[in-house]
Structure formats: C-alpha cells, structure tokens
C-alpha cells in the first residue's frame, strides 16, 4: 500500500503559543538567544511562515526535535520553512548533484528474504558488518532504491523526502517483504529507523511494516548469546548521531548493550542531550570553521575522559571523525563491531 505524503508537517501552533520554555530553541547549542522571549518571537515567526534568523543559522543538527517536550516537530517545520523561503543551506549545485547521486537508480530486483531482514540503506560497502552469530540467518537489503532519504533534512529539501520516501517504502514492500510474508525489518542505522518511526508519521506517510532499531535487535540477541560474551572492560566515548535525536527512546538501550558487553559509556560532556555534531554537515553547508571547531571539541572531550574507543552508529559520523579520532590514539569503531568483539567474532 502506497503511503501518501501530505503537504503539511504535523504540528500544532497552539501548543507553541502556550509554550513557556521554548526548549526547542533555548536548548539549541548553535544559536544564541538573549532570553525566552526572543526565542519565542523567532519560533512564532517560523510557525507563521515568516523569515527568522534561525532559518539561516540552523546547523540542521535535529536536536530541537528531541528538545521539544510536546513532540511538536519543530525541526521538520523549520526545514519546511527553509525550503518554502528558498533558504538553501548549501550551494545549489551541491544540492542538485547530491539529489542526482542519491536518487533511486531503478536497479532493484525481487528477492526472497527471511527474518531478520537487515536494512543497510544505501550503503553496500557496509554490508560486511552483518555477519557472525550476531546476525545469524539475516537477509540484507541495500541500495539507493531503498534509501531512507532522511539526509535531505540537511539540505532544506522536504519536498524530496515527500516524493521519495513513499516510493522507497513501496520498494521495500514490493521487492522484499510482501512476497516473503515478512512484516518487520531491522534498521541498521538510526536514519532509517528515524525515518520510518518518527519522520513518516510527522509527514503523514504511511509505513506498512514494523521497524526494529539495531540497538533493540542487538540487545535481545545478546541475551540469547550471553554465554559467548567476554566482557571487554573498556571505556568508550559515544558519538551520538543527529538522527538519534528523532528517536531518543533508543538511547537507554545502548546503555543496556554496553553493560552486557562490559564497556563503560564514559560520561563525556558531549553525549546524550548534549551531543555535538560530528562536523560533517557544516562542511556540506560550507561552514568549515565551525566544522573544525566541532571536531576539536569532540576529540578533546573524548581525550579528557580517557576513552579507549570512540563508538559510532552512524557511518557518516565515522567517516567524518574516524581518521581524526584514530590519529589521537582512540580507536574508532561501529557499535555492532564492538559487540562482535565481545562475542569473540
């Protein structure tokens, strides 16, 4: 069944009118406001479809989506307004070329799958991560024809999300799940899980399958494989990605996983609600000075807490920060790989 994209993002202006804290903007790590009143004025401008400096200064870190205590979708609305007002955060040729590069290639073919079906999104180079006992019997689906397309939030391109996400959902159903009688899928990345469980409802897009977050999948699997775990006894710094802001309920699951494998999530300054962007997106926006600053802050913070590993769940964060992390003597690693280490795989 094709999901239907509607024009408007789900949000209730009345909730904002009544809101006293304006957490969405007051907690923003990248834009300064003198007081709540100023933040409120800017927020109401955004709600009314008027220009606000927030639309120019926004790093598109997704965090306000988490900060709003009323789930009033401030970030999705912000991106909607950026696009409506033609405020592209990145140069036009960068956006148009990326749109072509990441567009569906129509190369998808029908395939029978068996659970667990692991969605690796558009990253075939990462399918090697799905291996060993942890993913025993898994079917992997991957390619630009099932790309979650959430990245366009960084490009003021909600229109692309509305156009492409329903098609991707159709593809997942038509080419993989339906004929195999499967109705659920493990999302390897926060991006996909965030798209199907948080973005889609806010955009009025129907999702006919159940999405399972990688953390939930791993957490359950670790109970089944408990006798194979050798505790790692290591300190890890977690680089929480932007897309996890859409699904903060999954963050405590990571704590459970790390406890099971004997890894300590060191309380660094830039974790949890205070997580700092890896620096990748500001480079897209041609703000390299800011990106340099973010990289430095992240690395110093990891060094300060004596982390031996920097753990990532986002391949883009890892690509952006990994080399710098390694040069500073900290081992960059994907969470699934860390878990596999504990399983002796």
């Amino acid at each position, binding site marked *: 069944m094709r999901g239907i994209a509607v024009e408007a993002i789900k949000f209730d202006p009345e909730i904002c009118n009544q809101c006293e804290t304006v957490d969405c903007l007051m907690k923003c790590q990248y834009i300064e406001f003198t007081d709540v009143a100023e933040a409120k004025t800017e927020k109401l401008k955004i709600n009314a479809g008027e220009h606000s400096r927030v639309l120019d200064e926004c790093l598109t870190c997704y965090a306000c989506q988490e900060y709003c205590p009323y789930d009033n979708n401030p970030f999705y609305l912000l991106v909607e307004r950026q696009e409506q007002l033609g405020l*592209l955060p*990145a*140069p*036009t*040729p*960068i956006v*148009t*070329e990326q749109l*072509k*590069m990441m*567009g569906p290639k129509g190369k998808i073919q029908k395939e029978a799958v068996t659970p667990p079906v692991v969605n690796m999104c558009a990253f075939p180079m990462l399918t090697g991560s799905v291996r060993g006992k942890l993913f025993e019997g898994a079917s992997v689906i991957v390619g630009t024809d099932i790309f979650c397309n959430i990245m366009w939030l960084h490009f003021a391109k909600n229109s692309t999300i509305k156009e492409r996400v329903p098609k991707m959902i159709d593809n997942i159903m038509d080419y993989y799940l339906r004929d195999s009688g499967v109705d659920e899928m493990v999302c390897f990345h926060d991006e996909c899980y965030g798209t199907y469980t948080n973005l889609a409802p806010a955009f009025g897009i129907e999702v006919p399958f159940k999405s399972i977050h990688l953390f939930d999948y791993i957490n359950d699997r670790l109970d089944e494989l408990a006798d194979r775990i050798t505790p790692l006894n290591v300190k890890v710094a977690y680089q929480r990605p932007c897309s996890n802001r859409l699904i903060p309920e999954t963050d405590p699951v990571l704590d459970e996983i790390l406890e099971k494998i004997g890894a300590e999530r060191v309380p660094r300054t830039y974790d949890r609600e205070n997580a700092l962007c890896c620096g*990748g997106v500001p*480079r*897209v926006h*041609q703000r*390299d*000075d800011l990106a*340099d600053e973010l990289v430095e802050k992240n690395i110093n913070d990891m060094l300060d807490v004596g982390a031996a590993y920097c753990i990532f769940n986002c391949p*883009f964060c890892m*690509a*952006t920060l*990994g*080399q710098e992390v390694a040069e500073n003597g900290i081992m960059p690693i994907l969470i699934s790989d860390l878990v596999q280490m504990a399983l002796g795989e």
Partner: protein
Amino acid sequence: MKELIDRLKKIVGDRFVSEAPEERYIYSMDMGTMPASAPDLVVMPASTEEVSKIMEAANAHQVPVTPMGGGLVLSGLTRALKGGMILDMKRMNRITEVNPKSRYAVVEGGTSQGMLQAYLKKNHPELKHSVPDAPPIATLAGNVCIHGSGHLSVLGGYHSDMLTGMEVVLPTGEVIRTGSCSVSSDWFGKAPLPDLSGLFMGWAGTTGVVTRLGIKLFPSYRYNDLLIFVCDDAEDMPDVISRLTSTQVAEDMTPWMTPIPEWARGFMHINIAYGAHSKAELTFKRNLLQMSVKAYKDKKTGGFLPMPPPQKNRYMKIPTPDLVRFADVRKGGGFEYVGAIMAIEHFAEAYRAGVEIAEKNEVSYSMGARIVGAGHSMMFFYAYAFNRADQADMARAQKALEETNAATLEMGGIPWKAELPAQQQIIEKMAPDTFALMNRIREALDPNHIMNPGNWERA
C-alpha cells in the same frame, strides 16, 4: 639490413636487437587511433655511448630511427612511419643524481615516472617530482619531450618548464648538453645560457635522442588534502580557476566534466590538491582556497563537495586511476584524447564544443583539464574511449578527434602532442617563416632525415 643488424648487435649485444615479427607487430602501434606502422627492427641501448654509435650506424645505412620511451603518447608518435628502427630507451633507466638542497634529480633517458617516484619515496621522502597521470612506465624523457604536465603543474608549469638540463645524442651521433651541465658539474637549471633545450621539446623525437635529463624536485608534504569545487555553469570556470590559482597554494588543479556516472553530467568539478608541513598550515591553505571563491558560496552558485577523508583517498592517488578506468569503458583497448593547450578564458567554449562533438559522433567521452601555472594556461582534454576490435567505433572516435583538433585551433588553442593529421592542421595555421625555420633547424641537425621521419613535415 643484415650488415646494419650485425653492427647494432656488436654495439648493444645480441639480445637487444630484434627483427622478430611479433616484436615488430607490438612496436607498430599504440593505444590510439593512428594506423599501425611497423619498424624493421627494435634496438635497446644501455648507454649514451651506445646511442651515439647507433646513430652513426643509422646514418651510415640511411635508416630511420624513432626514439621511444613508454610508447604511451597515444597519438602515434612512436610509430616507425618510414620503417627503420625503434630505439627503445627503457634499459637506460638509472637515476644518477638527486640533489636535495637544489632540488633536482638527474635521470637517464629511459627512466620511468614510476621508478623515480618510488626511488624518491624510499630515499628522499622529503622530495617529489611532478607525476603525470600516465601509467607509471611512461618515461620522464618522453614526457618532457612532449611538454607534459602533472601533479605539480600549477606550482611548476609544464614538465618542460621543470627541465634543468639535458644530455642529447644528435641525429649525427655527437653528444651535446644543454643548460648548466654543459658548463658545470651541477644540473641546476637552464639559465643563464642560450637555451638549446628547446631544440628537443615539442619536436616529437625528430631532432635527437635524450639520454639524460635534469628535472626539478619539490617539497613532499607530510599532510596532504584535496578540495573539490562544484558549479554548474561552464561560464564561471575561468573566473573560478583564476581566483583559486591566485592564492598560489594549490599544487595541482584538474577540472573534470563527465557524463558517467549519470549524476555527474552537467556539473563542473575542480579537484584542487595542496599540501603542508603541519595541520595548521594545511587548514590555513584550505581557508585561503575557500576564501578565494567565497563570492560563489555567497551566491550559492558554487561550493566545495563535502567529502569525508576515506572518500577523498580515491581522488588523491598519484597517478590517478580514474583516467585509466575510463580508458577501458568500451573494452577492446582503445583510448585517445585531444589535449588542447589553450588560455583558460576559453573554458566554456571548449566545454560546449566537446559536448557537441561527442554527442554528434556518439562516442564515449570524458572531459577535463589540467591547469598549468597560476592560471597561465590549461591542457583541456577530450578523451574518447573506443573498442579497437570494432572498426565503426574506432572510426567514430577518429572523426571526433579530428573535429576536436579543428575546434581547438578555431578557439585559439593548439593540439598537444599532435598526431599526424593534427600536425598538418597546426602547420597550416603556423606563421610560414616559423615553419621554414623549423625545417632549417632540422636540416642542420639531421642532414640525412633519419629522425622519426614523417612527423612535423608538410604532407
């Protein structure tokens, strides 16, 4: 011929003279579109002295000599058009000196790019030379002789500009030197003497055999990075190139425009490579480059591709594997390009002409350029891949090449390392007295017309 062969065998040894048909076949062609033309024999000398004796023998027997390095020029310049011998220089591959303070290396006439690159990496990691994107077996001499360009060309110009001196065996067998090494034991440069090196560069091996040359070396940096600028309007390119080169920071700048993969079609990219001794210096240089084109960022009409380090690595390989990969798109081992040396303000015109010609002739194409100097000129290339086993495909590529050469001259550019038909087109446009002087010089150097005959001659 038998007498000559015996004489040559005495000079270089039996193993290094061959008239075997399979050898003659292999040496009859290159990967480009020019028809095969077989030599009578192939000779591989090992020293300047041997080259000199070979030239004396060739003169005595009035047999043509075509010098060859890697044979990778692609435009058929190492085919024996009038038979005779191919003088394959690959045995003369010693690196005889590296001067780290004055930053130059002296190599023999058959030393390959790959050998010097590897040698410096191992023995002088603080130094590097400007490597072209040709396969590593290409020789320094062959490349300098055709005014090649490479990964340090923004910094140092054409590779012929990086030449510091030469030892050359003249067609008549005398051994001469050009540059400081003709007076001093040091090979530091061409100044302040009358520059005789020009007698051998751009002549397609028709004036002598280079047996040794000095080439400039440059600092090799510990930290290296690459930016890729993107815009979608070819008209902006001269200004963008001019701004970027004005920073005097880039080592290499290579625009590329390709219809494959499909997402890249219609976009202008410029790879900008630069290096530094420290991270802080690298960031400083990056900022200079970015600031230079800030106007485009502010208008949102251009910017830098976001690329995490692992993705960049592919673009930072020297030589780049991308051109070789493109060369094989049609399979069947056919590849040739027109390198149009021209002023950068013709960029948009050159780009439009390329798209039009490629689409009209239905050939697989890729376009790009290498900026030479601080925007002083560029080598704009139109690369066409074809299947050698498919005559129609090859004919289409040939026609596209010819039309591109004509368009290049029309725009005020000059086809680089021109194949025979393009040489004719250039001669037609050349000031007549200049061509007459070329002929007089040749006559003086090569009275028996034995050096790579057929090239730079009016048909």
